[in-house]
């Protein structure tokens, strides 16, 4: 498992595996928003939590088709399916590696971008916390979408369509927590809901994805 994790991380960082892509996309979205809606600090401050969450979600979506497609092309996936390590575990590790290479940089970049969007001071801690709690759910749900579309040629559009409605609850709870904190309200409820959602997807999605992959490889 450790070897697989290290391998995925190395591949992502070295071979131009889109390590910077998600981060760059996140940066572009948040930097372009003030140009699109105008530089009014009050307005920016009001929409900042939502924009940051949306940017993180789209950046995550962008990198999903790489999650399994490359391994499917070169046959690694077949090897993993027949390896002694259960496929569920292998997929969980792959989602974890995806989170480290896309989710974690987004979480780290969010406060800086929040500064540019004039996010109110009370919002930072909860925004980072919510992203930290929510992005693993984005990765694991994305894993399921990637497993469904792994054999489909040019499945990127299909993947986005499938994953889009699945992302809705995560986005709602995450953005709600950040927004409540930014406006000085209590944010514990959405944070707890978000944490529950993430734990549930962490527990169930690797199994669903592995089931789908086995069906596809049969």
């Amino acid at each position, binding site marked *: 498992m450790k070897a697989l994790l290290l391998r995925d991380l190395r591949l992502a960082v070295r071979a131009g595996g889109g390590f910077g892509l998600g981060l760059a996309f996140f940066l572009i979205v948040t930097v372009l928003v003030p140009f699109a809606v105008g530089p009014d600090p009050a307005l920016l401050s009001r929409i900042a939590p939502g924009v940051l969450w949306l940017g993180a979600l789209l950046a995550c979506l962008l990198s999903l088709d790489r999650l399994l497609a490359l391994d499917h092309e070169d046959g690694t996936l077949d090897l993993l399916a027949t390896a002694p390590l259960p496929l569920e575990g292998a997929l969980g590790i792959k989602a974890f590696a995806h989170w480290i290479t896309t989710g974690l940089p987004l979480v780290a970049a969010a406060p800086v971008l929040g500064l540019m969007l004039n996010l109110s001071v009370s919002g930072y801690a909860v925004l980072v916390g919510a992203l930290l709690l929510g992005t693993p759910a984005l990765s694991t749900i994305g894993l*399921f979408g990637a497993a*469904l*579309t792994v*054999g*489909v040629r040019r*499945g990127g559009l*299909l993947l986005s*369509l*499938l994953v*889009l*409605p*699945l992302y*809705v*609850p995560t986005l*709602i*709870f995450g953005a*709600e927590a950040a927004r409540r904190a930014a406006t000085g309200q209590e944010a514990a409820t*959405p944070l707890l*809901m978000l944490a529950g*959602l993430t734990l549930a997807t962490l527990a169930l999605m690797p199994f*669903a994805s592995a*089931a*789908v992959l086995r*069906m*596809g490889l*049969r």
Partner: protein
Amino acid sequence: MSLWEYANPVRFLRLSAKAQPVLWVAAGLSLSLGLLWGFFGTPDDMRQGSTVKIIYLHVPAALMAINAWFMMLVASLIWLIRRHHVSALAAKAAAPVGLMMTLIALVTGAIWGQPMWGTWWAWDPRLTSFLILFLFYLGYIALWSAIDDPDTAADFTSVLCLVGSVFAVLSRYAVKFWNQGLHQGTSVPVATGGRTISDVFFYPLVLSMVGFGLLFIALVFLRTGTEIRQRRTRALLARARRGG
């Protein structure tokens, strides 16, 4: 005699051929009767005027949009557990019907909402849930058409239907949390048994609901039959090619 006998495509087609005329006639009768009664035989509402009459399209369509997904869920489960092809094909056949029902509910809701709420669309929990349901239908249909091998496609879409159902329910509660409702509560609460709608409007409504339900069943029978025959044609063509 058990229900599982109809998992045999031949038996299913025989049943479908026998049941369809009855279903179509019953659906046509109850729909036309319910709609005509509803549109012309009921008085205008005190506050909503004649716009209230769109209820005879809106509510049954919304009801069937949800039930169609539920039927697909059951059919997917049967496919995953017992691997009857008819079941998978029935789920496939129901999806576009459900999509259209969702669309009808959304469009009639918008047409009613414009004069009544003063807006075509609001990010109300019910409206938003239906939009999400619409996206689920789209994704489901797109996944069916994206995968070439029919059995794999059936497997994948079944799992998507299961996972999607969980997330659809989750979204329903998430959007409630996210925004307050503009949509009125149900007029026919099943749980409490009481109802907040006058009998004058209620009976034609029930008739249209029955009509929409029968129409849905008839359409699913028809479309499943088409799918079965299509698959049989494909198998025959493949055999002919191999032989010749």
